[in-house]
């Protein structure tokens, strides 16, 4: 739980969840839901008012330094220094994480470090620009560079706080592909926050929060089941016959006529096959997760 000083309400209020190693976890919620606060607490830049958490067995309050070593963070606001070159940004990160001792120029840095940077630049396709100021890079390239940089110290968990905010659609897509590649090759646990539902669809598990509380938690399919009401809407000229028939096979119907038959694991086909009465209306209602999500967060987004 976290209540900011001078705040009347808790920014994060009794949320609790587990993320498995290697998982792609998404914390989903509208603006102001408490996503950044949650990440700040988990990455030890903010102390919780009460409660706690552990990351890879290290307590975020008592073993803050160990936790910092185990996590990588991509902030909502770009964290590259625009006046420094790409290499300098990488070098400073490497030194801050104690990977290599400091040297004032690239040439004086450890040989292994230089090999790593060369490799990295090749991977990003910026071999020629690695010694140019970051200012001259595109927004997408900067984000990729940040991700690469955050992986230098081989973190167990990579936190990304709305990494695609402010990027255009093609850039967002390439960033996404890049992230998928990172997951495949490094096996790092990814903890991502977003307010875009579509970014949660590939996740192993999703936690939806709103106003500092957990609204739903599970795999995207589970969440869908949890939040979304799937049904077939049927109607017939002979309504009483239809009503009697629907009551029989153990379907759950709501309202009617027209009747809403809950799918509940039944296929639409099976339901229709069991109805002999000629139907005048058949309409399937399988709203997208997005519809359901909007329903949850719609009120607070106003």
């Amino acid at each position, binding site marked *: 739980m976290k209540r900011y*000083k001078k705040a009347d309400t808790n920014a994060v209020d009794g949320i609790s969840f587990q993320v498995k190693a290697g998982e792609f976890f998404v914390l989903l919620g509208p603006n102001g839901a408490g996503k950044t606060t949650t990440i700040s607490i988990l990455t030890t*830049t903010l102390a919780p008012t009460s409660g706690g958490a552990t990351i890879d067995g290290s307590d975020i309050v008592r073993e803050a330094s160990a936790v910092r070593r185990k996590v990588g*963070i991509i902030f909502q606001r770009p964290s*590259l220094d625009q*006046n*420094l070159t790409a290499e300098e940004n990488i070098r400073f990160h490497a*030194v801050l994480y104690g990977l290599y001792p400091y040297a004032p120029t690239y040439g004086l840095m450890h040989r292994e470090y230089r090999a790593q940077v060369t490799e990295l630049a090749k991977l990003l396709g910026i071999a020629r620009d690695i010694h140019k100021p970051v200012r001259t890079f595109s927004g997408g390239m900067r984000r990729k560079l940040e991700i690469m940089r955050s992986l230098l110290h081989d973190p167990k968990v990579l936190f990304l706080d709305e990494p695609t905010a402010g990027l255009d659609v093609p850039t967002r897509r390439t960033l996404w592909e890049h992230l998928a590649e990172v997951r495949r090759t490094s096996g790092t646990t990814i903890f991502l926050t977003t307010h875009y539902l579509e970014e949660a669809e590939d996740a192993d598990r999703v936690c939806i929060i709103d106003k500092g509380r957990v609204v739903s938690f599970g795999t995207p399919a589970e969440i869908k089941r949890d939040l979304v009401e799937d049904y077939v809407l049927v109607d017939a000229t002979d309504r009483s016959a239809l009503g009697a028939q629907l009551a029989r096979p153990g379907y759950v119907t709501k309202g009617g006529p027209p009747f809403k038959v809950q799918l509940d694991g039944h296929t639409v086909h099976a339901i229709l096959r069991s109805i002999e009465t000629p139907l005048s209306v058949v309409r399937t209602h399988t709203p997208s997760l997005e519809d359901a999500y909007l329903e949850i967060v719609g009120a607070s987004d106003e």
Partner: protein
Amino acid sequence: MPISRSWVQAMSEASAILVIAHRDFSKLIRDRQRMIAEFAFPVIFIGILGTSLQTGFGDRAGVNLLHFVFTGVLGMTIWQSTAQGLISLLADREQDFSQEIFVSPISRYTIILGKILGESLVALPQWLGIVIFGFVLQVPLGADQLIRMALAGIVVAFFGGAFGVLVLANLSSQRAATQIFTFVMLPQYFLAGIFNPIGHLPLPLDILSKISPMRYAVDFMRDAYYGGAGSGIPLFDTSTNFAIIGAMFVVFMVVGTFLFVRAERNR
């Protein structure tokens, strides 16, 4: 091997201090606009205020007011430069590379030390710029004076940094940071006697002046230029000023860092 491990830890913290300082300095060097802006202030003060005071009152006062203002502004600029640099740490916390520094596994003390070192390096070209400007205005500057003033500059820079830490630790928001200049810096300009003599102040002002840290930075720089209090211009001797600066430095650092580290995570 606990010794070896703590040695490695110490080396990596030392590396981190250097990296933070390196970044501060590179930032300044590559930001031409800022370089120019940093010189504008002292140039206006010394060139316009110092020169006009000298031509207006100087001869009658029997003191060269251009030299007086030159030394005062030199001490003030360096002191304020590092102090402001440290205070900017607060505003920077959520910007660019600073966020990266704050989440890295280095100790908070390392951040403070790296920042003080970096901001002191940033003050260096300012020192040089002002001294060159002094030559332009034909302020007499001998080699021995320059050496003393350079050493004093280093002391004053670190002292300003310590003051910055104390202010930083007591700020809660960026809005407060923008008001610092009006309430903390500006009064000290006059209480520290950069342009005006403060040898004979009414008691309340005298008390305020004596608790103004900037006063000792300015006076220490004047000691270096004039060669101590014997010349009649600096208020205190080099050793007295140095002792006061040393004591304030320790108190500011200990209290400031303690409060800063504590406030950092309990927002």
